[in-house]
């Protein structure tokens, strides 16, 4: 085959397909190595190390950056996610409701909270609500306020995702459930919503990761040493030591949260795929 092609190509000898592939591959590796080499030899590693990777500064951050900072970040994230998921599901069902007033309220809420910066919402939760209801308190202190503030915004996004998930469940599923005598609500809870949640696992992962990073806004609420989270903890160290190493440590600690999370979700997706 190749020889026929070569003969057809004329007297000039051309490279075979495999030779061409090999040369292209070599060029790609060469470019990659060259870029690495340029960065490695031209960067001022000493200054970089002094500015961003000082072991003594990094060491001084432990165990504080894990306990309580990492734990608090996790607590804020979890609280906001659970609150957002519950409210988001309710909003999604309201948007799909036959009651027009529910649809209006849900649409209004979603449009409003998708448009508001999280910072503003947190500020309203932290200072607006206490002013409006001076003799009441949001339960859970900063944890409750964070769950509410981040969760209200997250709910707006989640509601749209969950609504799309519910609509993606074939209509026949609801019909089959109804013909078995299930009332509408029971059919939604037992049949439609579980399948909708399986569909929305990937976008929900993004939502959790976004929430994880949004917890850094907790400083708005005026946190104490006991409920400080990763970013606030690190920037305090940064200010005290006048060195950027804490930022690198903080970044790594965030990865400690998000990388295993991706793994867990991948496993959940595999499990859901088995049932598909």
């Amino acid at each position, binding site marked *: 085959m190749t020889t026929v092609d070569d003969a057809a190509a004329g007297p000039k000898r051309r490279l075979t397909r495999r030779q061409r592939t090999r040369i292209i591959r070599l060029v790609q590796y060469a470019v990659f190595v060259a870029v690495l080499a340029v960065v490695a030899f031209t960067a001022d590693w000493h200054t970089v190390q002094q500015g961003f990777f000082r072991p003594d500064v990094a060491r001084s951050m432990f165990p504080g950056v894990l306990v309580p900072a990492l734990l608090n970040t996790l607590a804020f994230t979890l609280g906001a996610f659970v609150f957002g998921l519950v409210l988001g599901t309710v909003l999604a069902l309201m948007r799909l409701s036959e009651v027009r007033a529910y649809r209006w309220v849900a649409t209004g809420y979603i449009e409003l909270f998708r448009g508001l910066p999280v910072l503003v919402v947190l500020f309203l939760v932290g200072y607006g609500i206490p002013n409006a209801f001076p003799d009441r308190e949001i339960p859970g202190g900063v944890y409750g306020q964070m769950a509410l503030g981040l969760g209200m915004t997250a709910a707006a996004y989640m509601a749209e995702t969950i609504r799309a998930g519910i609509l993606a469940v*074939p209509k*026949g*599923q609801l*019909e*089959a*459930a*109804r*013909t*078995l*005598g*299930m*009332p509408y609500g*029971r059919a939604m809870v*037992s*049949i439609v919503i*579980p*399948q909708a949640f*399986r569909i929305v696992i990937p976008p929900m992962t993004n939502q959790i990761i976004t929430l994880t990073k949004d917890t850094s806004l907790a400083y708005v609420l005026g946190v104490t040493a006991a409920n400080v989270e990763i970013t606030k903890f690190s920037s305090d160290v940064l200010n005290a030591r006048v060195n950027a190493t804490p930022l690198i440590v903080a970044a790594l600690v965030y990865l400690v949260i998000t990388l295993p999370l991706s793994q867990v979700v991948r496993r959940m997706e595999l499990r*859901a795929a*088995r*049932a*598909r």
Partner: protein
Amino acid sequence: MSDAVVIEDLHKSFGPLEVLTGIDLTVTSGEVVCVIGPSGSGKSTLLRCVNLLESPTRGRIHTLGVEITDPDCELDALRRRIGMVFQQFNLFGHLTVLDNLTIAQRRVLRRTRAEAERIARENLDRVGLGDKAGAYPAHLSGGQQQRVAIARSLSMGPELMLFDEPTSALDPELVGDVLTVMRDLATEGMTMLVVTHEMAFARDVADRVVFMDGGVIVEQGAPAAVLGDPTEERTRTFLRRVLDPTHLSDAELD
């Protein structure tokens, strides 16, 4: 013998489209009635009105002695007594076969898990799938899925079974499994209303065949009469197209 389904002057429109224009039909208890007819003739809509998956525009339907078209009837309670099998199976994809059969028993009939599972396994055996209890629907063939769907309906102990083109989505070699289960069911005395394109099933199993076209019942009677010696020209044309599809005259091509 009492009547399982009594349909009087049934009309159904989707917007400006009139699908059913005056249907009167009675199915007595223990009877197997097959509804045949060209696509778009309203067969499925008729069937879906019997358990109120579609709301009639006009007319009355009594199902199992209850007027299902009465807005105040206990619809969910009535539907528990009516099984339905869909063209697309509609098994619950997130549940195992066993859970597909037990969920409504437990949530609706309030049976205990043990009792629900016992009844589920009985019905799986009945459709020849006793070994598939732990499988997910996606891992079954279409024919197996449809038999699970039948077993799911039977687990509720229905007094009437509705079949909406149960074999139309199946590969040809799997049709027989499903039809055999349906024939056994008919032999046991189940009241069945079946929308189908399987003329052999209609001929062999049905007590009565109903031919529909254009939203009305054109002709009905014993299978031998309707399928073997139809009186209406429309029935003859339809049967020729179905039974001998390779010998249509040029004039008959759409």
